[in-house]
């Protein structure tokens, strides 16, 4: 009933529903975006705590804090929470907030579905985290087979909680697919008059492509966990050699999802960096159309490289060669993006506010992750890197200093637009410097560990790995706790008591429709379509 009354008031800006119902029944893209962002921020601290347990255990050789069984649960849940609970939902949160504002739309195309996509997530992660809580209370084991949950370790040998995990992944998948449908529907149908595809902001473009990737591969993930479900409970043998199945089939299906997933976790950050670098260079993005083509090429290539995660499974040589060459090709469009960002900065008029600092660090550190990725594509060398800390270093460079740094940059960049208040620039810079130094202390030595022969996912190690593990652990604790600075800064900005009010433009070099709205942005974005040049 109340919904009817409120609809009457829709054209009055900032008439918000109140109380818990505002959030539970929300169909507003900003409120849902806010919930996505807070959800992922909370999950970030949960997943980060698990990472610190891992690093505490690995500080010294020997077993100190957690038994091997619990250690495996820590690595598994750390990975699952960070991938599905932090990076992906925070991108959806950013898309919710920014896509309608950037294309001149009043809201998302499918607001009720938007509500449902978000509210599936607490249920999904509740189930997953419940399995860990039960494990800590002595009731069985939480998922302990790594975030890649290879069969038969996760099927025949999986703990009872594996079925919780499967249901949880199904829910996350439904949530992601609905979120992706919503973003595609919004971008196709609700752009302001005059905003042709090739005039869309790059962030919108990268999310547009990401959404298609999600729709293509989340059902594959759902398929693989469903096969696990029937293998475990209904007597099928998809992945059991004893019943005529194939354990390697699991890896093919999983990585057919998993490799595009890697790009799902980085393309929106590419988009964010492509918004921020031009803003603080006071210059148009260099090579707009090549950016779009490069993103599309990366998305296409992501479907034909999955088996590079499986070079040691004993594939035929011809298959190994195909996947090596295809993987090496990804360096080309990725290189184009990096060159374009550098050219955007070239002969610009640069300033270095916190979002720009994170964006520059992104370009440096993501590129390092890209280089190690190229090294990993070379099959004979990959035999030495596979399943070692070199791989751990590689994917943390692309996911932490890549994807996550993109998200940090985005939060600082758009927080004044969301709240109407400037964040504390000094605290932002402290957060940046402490994080950036410690994250390298944390992850750079892992390259050395991997090259020296330390396998990943082990709770204890031989003595020659002691020094670099200790250094990495020190970096981990500093990096982990420095995120509290970000939390404090965000809360301070939202409360807005001691901060400067933001203008509509916010940043001197900012261009785009979102900056034409007042700060804070009104509850309903563009109720009449804006004019777009």
């Amino acid at each position, binding site marked *: 009933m109340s919904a009817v009354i409120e609809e009457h008031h829709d054209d009055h800006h900032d008439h918000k529903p109140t109380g818990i119902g505002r959030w539970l029944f929300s169909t507003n893209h900003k409120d849902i975006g806010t919930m996505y962002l807070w959800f992922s921020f909370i999950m970030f601290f949960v997943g980060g705590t698990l990472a610190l347990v891992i690093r505490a255990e690995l500080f010294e050789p020997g077993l100190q804090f957690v038994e091997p069984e619990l250690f495996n649960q820590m690595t598994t849940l750390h990975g699952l929470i960070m991938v599905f609970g932090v990076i992906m939902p925070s991108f959806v949160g950013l898309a919710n907030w920014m896509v309608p504002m950037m294309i001149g739309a009043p809201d998302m195309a499918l607001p009720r579905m938007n509500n449902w996509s978000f509210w599936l997530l607490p249920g999904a992660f509740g189930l997953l985290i419940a399995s860990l809580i039960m494990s800590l209370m*002595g009731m069985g084991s939480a998922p302990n087979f790594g975030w890649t949950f290879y069969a038969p370790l996760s099927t025949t040998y999986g703990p009872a909680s594996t079925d919780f995990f499967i249901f949880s992944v199904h829910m996350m998948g439904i949530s992601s697919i609905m979120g992706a449908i919503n973003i595609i529907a919004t971008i196709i149908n609700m752009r302001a008059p005059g905003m042709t595809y090739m005039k869309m902001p790059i962030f919108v473009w990268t999310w547009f492509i990401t959404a298609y990737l999600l729709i293509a591969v989340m059902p594959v993930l759902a398929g693989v966990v469903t096969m696990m479900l029937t293998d475990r409970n209904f007597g099928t043998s998809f992945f059991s050699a004893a019943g005529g199945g194939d354990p390697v089939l699991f890896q093919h299906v999983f990585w057919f999802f998993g490799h595009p997933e890697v790009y799902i976790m980085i393309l929106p950050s590419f988009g964010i960096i492509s918004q921020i670098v031009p803003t603080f260079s006071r210059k148009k993005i260099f090579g707009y159309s*090549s950016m779009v083509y490069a993103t599309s090429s990366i998305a296409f290539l992501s479907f034909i490289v999955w088996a590079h995660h499986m070079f040691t499974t004993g594939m035929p040589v011809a298959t190994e060669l195909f996947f090596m060459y295809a993987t090496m090709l990804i360096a080309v469009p990725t290189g184009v993006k990096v060159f374009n960002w550098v050219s955007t900065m070239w002969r610009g008029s640069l300033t270095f506010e916190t979002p720009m600092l994170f964006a520059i660090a992104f370009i440096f550190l993501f590129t390092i992750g890209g280089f190690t990725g190229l090294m990993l594509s070379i099959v004979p060398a990959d035999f030495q890197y596979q399943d070692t800390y070199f791989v751990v270093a590689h994917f943390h460079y692309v996911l932490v200093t890549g994807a996550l740094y993109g998200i940090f940059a985005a939060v600082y960049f758009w927080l004044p637009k969301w709240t109407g208040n400037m964040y504390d620039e000094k605290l932002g810079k402290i957060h940046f410097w402490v994080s950036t130094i410690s994250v390298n202390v944390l992850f750079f030595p892992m390259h050395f560990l991997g090259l020296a022969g330390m396998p990943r996912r082990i709770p204890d190690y031989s003595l020659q790995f002691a020094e670099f593990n200790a250094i990495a652990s020190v970096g981990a604790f500093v990096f982990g706790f420095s995120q509290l600075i970000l939390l404090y800064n965000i809360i301070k900005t939202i409360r807005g008591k001691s901060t400067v009010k933001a203008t509509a433009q916010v940043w001197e070099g900012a261009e785009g429709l979102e900056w034409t709205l007042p700060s804070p942005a009104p509850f309903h974005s563009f109720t009449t379509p804006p004019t777009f040049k």
Partner: protein
Amino acid sequence: MSAAIRVASFISLMLVSMQSWAEYQLDLRPGVTSFSQGAYGIHTMVMWICVGIGIIVFGAMIYSIIMHRKSRGAVAAKFDDNLTVELIWTVVPFIILAFMAVPATKVLLAMEDTSNSDMSIKVTGYQWKWHYDYLGEDISFFSNLTTPIEEIQNKATKNEHYLLEVDNAVVVPVNKKVRLLLTGNDVIHSWWVPAFAVKKDAIPGYINEAWFKTDKIGTYRGQCAELCGTNHGFMPIVVKVVSESDYAAWVSGQKQQAVAAAESATKTWTKDELMEHGKTVYTTSCVACHQASGEGIPNVFPALKGSAIATGDVAKHIDIVVHGKTGTAMQAFGPQLNDADLAALITYERNAWGNNTGDMVQPADIKAAR
């Protein structure tokens, strides 16, 4: 605390002299096989190409960060595309990649050629140990971690080969092409010895092939590289490459041991002998799950101390050890251990930790129960 001191001294040492880095490995090692050296060569080449590209790209960025800052009065230029440079930086990477792909392909083809081998060893991954079967030689054994639990639990000083030491190493002759046939008994494992650049998954239902050949006598250590459950970190690999004559001596020694083992299976053992041998078998085969105290891990691995099976009917106890329990982590030890080992083990389990049943199991009982 000691680690904190070690880190502090390490960092200060680093600052004092870069030579101290020599002790800590920063890079891959060339290894001792032809293709480990090939892999090392490609690794080094690609890494330096990346460093070169990095210097150019990061150099341009740093130059821009320093020279094109607003505070220096820089005014933004107007350009936002340039077809020529865009074509160059699309085409040049293709050429660089092709330059990398050629040697990579060559090394890979050599690695995957397992033909004309001199001998073959079947390697089977178990949770959490390796089994080696010398094909055509009638030699087969399990290789278990021997690092004492006290060292792992920090109650004793860790030895030089902490976590990289086993009871039975793989012994192979120098200068022979050794073909490995890898499979898994339960879950997927991965056999990795960095010095050989051999890493191949051991997958249930599959037989994967790999090979190595080295001219350097020595002991080479590695680990399981694929997460395979609780004790994934505790199943190392040790390969001893020995001279041809030492290898022949080792083979005949193994055969004598096999004869001795066959004899021990027919004799009647005293209780003390059974208990002593049983403890050794327990420590290598059972302790990972059921723990040295026999108390297991609550809700994960059941206790044996005071358990219905270890204090109840002997026949049932023998049955579960020999045939395992399907659907659980309890493996069938019948195929893994001989009659004397199993008899001693079960006797030990029935009499250790206050289980004092007084029962004795002889190898003949096991033979009858198989």
